[in-house]
């Protein structure tokens, strides 16, 4: 825990910067329902450019759902709908009917809990996002693939076997490949849904390093069950419980001196 706090304080400078900017994502009084089952209750939250925001909370608290609302992945679920409130990115309501969900998802990339590269070559995985956009020039695609793999700190490990099946990589490499795949589409915001839950500690370390590096260019929202991880990588942390946002503040504050009793109980392991 000490380590985690140290990391957080190091990040406080960038936090101050971001606070001065206009929020990148603004969630306003959001209610979200699956059919008649309300899973998010009246959540309001701002996420600023180039910060790492961590969502923590026990299972079923709605943090993943909220994350998936940010690039409308919930559209896939039958009966998922907004009750009231809105989510805005750069002042645009995501659920307005004029919003093209395809364009939105290009700007708001997502990395999933289970690393799930396509059963194709490493190269094809990274190039996928470009190819479906209709980019055919091999030069452009090659350059973008290399750039993305470099950003994802994977280039050195895979540059000699780009044409091998992605499932030949280790779990951690696969997850970084998924991140590279997301970077290739040039998003502004990256959503990560428990990106390290299936990885061993060493691989987790590499992914966390990567997140801290990516922070310089991207806004990152991470859902995590691992509180140390939240402490290590995030600038701010939001704690959810039963679909409600209990508290959102600087990570240091949440971990050392939370305002709410529930937060303290959760952090200290009394429940959850």
């Amino acid at each position, binding site marked *: 825990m000490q380590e985690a706090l140290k990391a957080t304080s190091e990040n406080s400078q960038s936090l101050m910067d971001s606070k001065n900017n206009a929020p990148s994502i603004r969630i306003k009084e959001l209610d979200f329902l699956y059919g008649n089952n309300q899973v998010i209750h009246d959540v309001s939250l701002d996420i600023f450019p180039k910060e790492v925001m961590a969502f923590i909370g026990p299972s079923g608290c709605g943090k993943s759902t909220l994350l998936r609302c940010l690039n409308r992945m919930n559209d896939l679920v039958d009966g998922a709908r907004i009750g009231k409130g809105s989510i805005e990115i750069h002042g645009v309501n995501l659920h307005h009917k004029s919003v093209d969900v395809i364009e939105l998802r290009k700007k708001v990339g997502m990395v999933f809990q289970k690393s799930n590269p396509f*059963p194709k070559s490493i190269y094809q995985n990274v190039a996928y996002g470009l190819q479906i956009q209709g980019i055919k020039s091999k030069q452009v695609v090659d350059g973008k693939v290399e750039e993305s793999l470099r950003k994802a700190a994977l280039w050195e490990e895979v540059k000699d076997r780009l044409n091998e099946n992605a499932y030949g990589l280790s779990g951690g490499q696969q997850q970084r490949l998924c991140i590279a795949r997301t970077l290739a589409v040039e998003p502004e915001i990256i959503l990560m849904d428990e990106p390290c839950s299936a990885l061993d500690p060493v691989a987790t370390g590499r992914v966390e390093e990567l997140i801290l590096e990516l922070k310089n260019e991207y806004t990152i929202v991470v859902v995590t069950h691992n509180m140390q991880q939240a402490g290590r990588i995030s600038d701010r942390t939001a704690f959810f419980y039963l679909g409600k946002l209990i508290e959102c503040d600087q990570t240091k504050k949440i971990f050392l001196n939370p305002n709410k009793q529930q937060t303290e109980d959760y952090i200290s392991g009394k429940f959850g």
Partner: protein
Amino acid sequence: MSPSREPKHPFATRITRGRVQESIMFGFLRGMTFFVLFCAAFLFWDILSKGASKVFEGDGMLNWEFLTEHPQTLHVIGEGKDEIKLSSSNYFKLKDEKILVKWEEFRQSDEHDQARRGLDKVINLLEREWGDDSLAQSNEDFLNRECDNAANKFSFWKEMLVDVNNTAIDFEMKPEDVPSMVSQFILGHFEMERGRFSLVEEKITLFRAMQYPKIESISLKNAEQIEDAYKLFLSVVPEVYNKSIKLFGREVRSSYDEFMQVEGPKEFGRFAEAIVAYSNVRESFWGKDYESENWESLQASLTPFKRAMNVSLPSRDYAYSGGGIFPAIVGTLLLVIGAMAIAIVLGVFCAIFLAEYGKSGKFLSLVRLAILNLAGVPSIIFGLFGFGLFVIFLDWNVSLLAGWFTLAFMVLPIVITASEEALRSIPQGFRESSLALGATKWTMIKTSVLPFAMPGILTSSILGVARAAGETAPIMFTAAYAKRSELPWEGLEHWTDFFFQGVMALPYHIYVVSAKIPQNAYTADMQYGTAFVFLLLVVGVASLSIILRNRLRRKYRW
């Protein structure tokens, strides 16, 4: 096992209710399994052993005739050990050979020279018959004869019409029925004349078309008109017949010359045919009674040649038991391939909609229920459905296309269910990551679901279709012919005709041979041979699908 013997240790075997049940059930289950195994083994052994004797006839060599020939009648010559089995084509080949031998013998004999001289003389005499002088005389004779005949007949009919009441009494009928009876007589007469004057077909048709309305409402007056018209018509006949007699006469001459040069049985056959054609025209022109001496001596001088060609090769004939099953193999392959293509295209698109686009709800479960129930519909019902929809309503007749669609609809439930399963077995993660990278739904399906589901889809679909290809009922009304002498690619006027022709098919062939043809040892051979080939074909298609699946699986593994 005396009751006094106590178990020596705590784990000694004791007979309890549970133990008895256990051993009974074990035996029972094992027995059941072995029974199933036995039946399956018997089926394969039966077909393979009996079929193999047909496919690898006698010396273990592949029976090419069986695999590459059309079905034919089997001619069995001799009995017991000396029995020779020949399919029609070989039988007639053998007969031709025998004729050739006998013919050669005849040519060597003295009788031959004499017969030849006789024939030559007769032909030269006969040639005068189509000389211009004799034909001019014939014209007159013909006209006089025919006009007399017509006058006789018409006077009889007119008489019947003059006194209707009297006629009615004679024929024991009502007076008002007499005209219609007379019309029937006249119509019958012209029907006969049409056959006799077949060479002036066009003219007699014209005459009939002009006179029929009058015949329908016959009276004395128009009977006379018809008679006049008919006599007028007769005057056009001789010219045509003159020409024909000259023509056929020359034909006789030239075929005779050819025959004289080569003197083979085939040439003799052609010559004999020319004589028959000539004599037909001759008979209608000169009349049946006209028999010249020449004509009689011609028949007499032909006799020795005819005798030389008369070879008997007694055989017992069994329909459908000879030849091969090549058209049926081709037909079945065509049916399988076409039905497979249609079923997979229809089924996969349907499954994609159900699995990827369909929202769970009442409508969708109704659709699923319908598809599942479709799988339970008996194949004969599908046959009737195909007959009603494709053959009758869409007017495709008995055709490949109708068979394809009928079979495809029959396997559609299997293909849809299997494809849906295959699509559902693709991890949700592929879909989510694809969408998260900015793919539209169809792009997502096309690039990151369908390619990975394809192995599963293809395997189960191909197996399903291969199974359906064995069905007789769906094709018997829609696509299958019991016998067809052309292969599907033969005699097409336009390439689209390919789809609108019926074909022979293995299952239907087995059905026809075993149900429609009188049974004997030879048809049984045919059935088993067909079944054997059919079994191999199905096994082949199934293994093909498995190889295909393994190939694709290796490409996409996760």
